[in-house]
């Protein structure tokens, strides 16, 4: 019973949570530094997933090998998108950039649809034999990879933000942009770094999801709601909060479908994303600063 719970629900929740976390970090950093909700972030994840697919097709290598290339390429595209579509709006009210991000979301998605078509795809993946832990807990190798690589990326980001000059400057701009300007911090470099990080992590999340399930062109858009819920839950501007928020939302979504009372699922799996929405609305009402005291506008 408990083992079934861990194998079929908790593990999936953690994996999903890792994927949400990777997207939510970008959302929260962008919100903190550029002060706008980037609604194209989900589609940036789709882009990363499909760039990974293209990499697999071209090189014939497994997707793990191609992952860094997909991350780098998506990061580059993210900087280009900022340059072309968000940078020109920087003197307008930030909500204009939010509107623009909707357009960008559709542009990314339709570009993928034009190039790759709308058929459901997958990375070539053989049958995976689960790894057995303590004679009871079964865990799929790809889940080990996803969780492990997420931990590496998150720890790496945290070190970057705490130890490096540019990372600290990112935190400074997020903390107090006018003081950062007065201090002589080069905001342009900070903005570029933010897009590079956000784009790279989004690509990783997209590839992980494509690997765990399948690739379709709506993959990322369907993540927008849970990722924003995660970012708000964790506290806007707080990458660690975004990770916690992502895990909470991912696990909550999976657990909500667990038959806690008798044989019936607590919530029909079709309504999983309603869980994220409920968390989001609840947080906005009772504690808009999030778990880790983020910013509220």
């Amino acid at each position, binding site marked *: 019973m408990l083992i079934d719970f861990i194998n079929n629900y908790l593990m999936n929740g953690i994996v999903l949570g890792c994927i949400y976390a990777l997207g939510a970090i970008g959302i929260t950093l962008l*919100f903190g530094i550029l002060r706008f909700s980037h*609604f194209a972030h989900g589609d940036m994840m789709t882009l990363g997933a499909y760039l990974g697919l293209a990499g697999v097709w071209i090189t014939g290598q497994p997707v793990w090998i191609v992952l860094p290339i997909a991350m780098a390429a998506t990061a580059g595209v993210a900087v280009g998108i900022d340059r072309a579509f968000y940078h020109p709006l920087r003197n307008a009210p930030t909500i204009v950039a939010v*509107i623009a991000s909707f357009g960008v979301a559709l542009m990314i998605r*339709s570009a993928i649809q034009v190039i790759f078509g709308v058929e459901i795809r997958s990375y070539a993946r053989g049958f995976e034999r689960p790894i057995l832990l303590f004679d009871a807990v079964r865990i799929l190798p790809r889940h080990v990879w996803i969780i492990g690589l997420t931990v590496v990326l998150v720890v790496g980001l945290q070190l970057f933000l705490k130890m490096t000059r540019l990372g600290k400057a990112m935190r400074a701009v997020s903390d107090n942009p006018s003081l950062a300007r007065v201090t002589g911090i080069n905001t342009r470099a900070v903005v570029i770094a933010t897009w590079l990080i956000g784009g790279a992590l989004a690509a990783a999340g997209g590839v992980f999801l494509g690997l765990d399930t399948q690739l379709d062109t709506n993959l990322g858009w369907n993540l927008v*709601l849970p990722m924003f819920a995660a970012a708000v839950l964790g506290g806007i501007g707080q990458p660690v909060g975004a990770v916690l928020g992502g895990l909470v939302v991912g696990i909550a979504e999976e657990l909500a479908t667990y038959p806690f009372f008798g044989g019936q699922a607590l919530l029909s799996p079709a309504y999983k994303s309603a869980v994220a929405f409920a968390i*989001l*609305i609840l947080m*906005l009402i009772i504690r808009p600063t999030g778990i880790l005291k983020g910013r509220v506008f």
Partner: protein
Amino acid sequence: MISDANLGLIMYAIALMNIGAIYAILSLGLNLQWGVAGLFNAGIAGFFAVGAYTSAILTAPDSPDFLGGFELPIPLGWVGAMIVSGALALVIGAATIRLRSDYLAIGTIGIAEILRLFLKNEEWLTNGVRGITTVPRPFQFDQPLLSELSFLGMTLTLLLIAYVAIERSVNSPWGRMMRAIRDNEVAAAAMGKHVERRRLEAFVLGSMLMGLGGALMSQYFRFIGPEATEPFQITFLVWVMLIAGGAGNNRGAILGAFLIWAIWSMTELVTRQLPPDWAVRAGYLRIFLVGLLLQVVLQRFARGLLPERIRQRIRP
């Protein structure tokens, strides 16, 4: 006598006008929310779909496939659509309107996404993915031309009523206060609770118009299915219409709706000529180009074709 080719062309033009007029009602609703009150609604499709389904269920004949059999008169379908959309807006607005506009955007996306799931999955209510195919349409005659024309008369009348009502309220003390709130957040904050209420009113009224638009669209096509909640068809097109036409200006909202709809559906005539495989891709290319059009408008013509008229401000 009108030749067949000419008749086809005329029918096409009237259909264009009919759908354009329904989009204009949606665009007016968004203008009330965004143009006048500065409220960001990213879930237009949700309010639209709720209105469409409500009116369909209230007016459709009995069917084993979905909840129905009320067979209410069509105008009551409109009223029901507006009430349910408005109530939905009240709930979501009450939770998020006091926060920064981004949060309202997230909240409205959430509502639209959950409705998408709901309408697809609750088959007893909506017939699931197959949708409701027996939505009654008013003014049905033997002559298709006459049916189309009288439907157009109806939509244009409703559009006119909506336009006059909004113009009046925008120029009333209520509307002046709304714009003051939008333009000066400091003063708005000083007015406190009062402001939240006014903004909520604008949000609810705008969403009611979106519900009406949904009801009309379902009647025009005699069909409503869950794909109506896809973010592109409704939410995004309406945003492009309002921004291109001129946010803050009701005439701009209407002009933008007709213009963008005309461009959108006429480009379809072009892509339809392509071989099937290319036609699908070209369809997505059209979406890409609309996205690009929005970016160009935002960057170069931020105030739209008919900019908001700057009214004389009273100086202290």
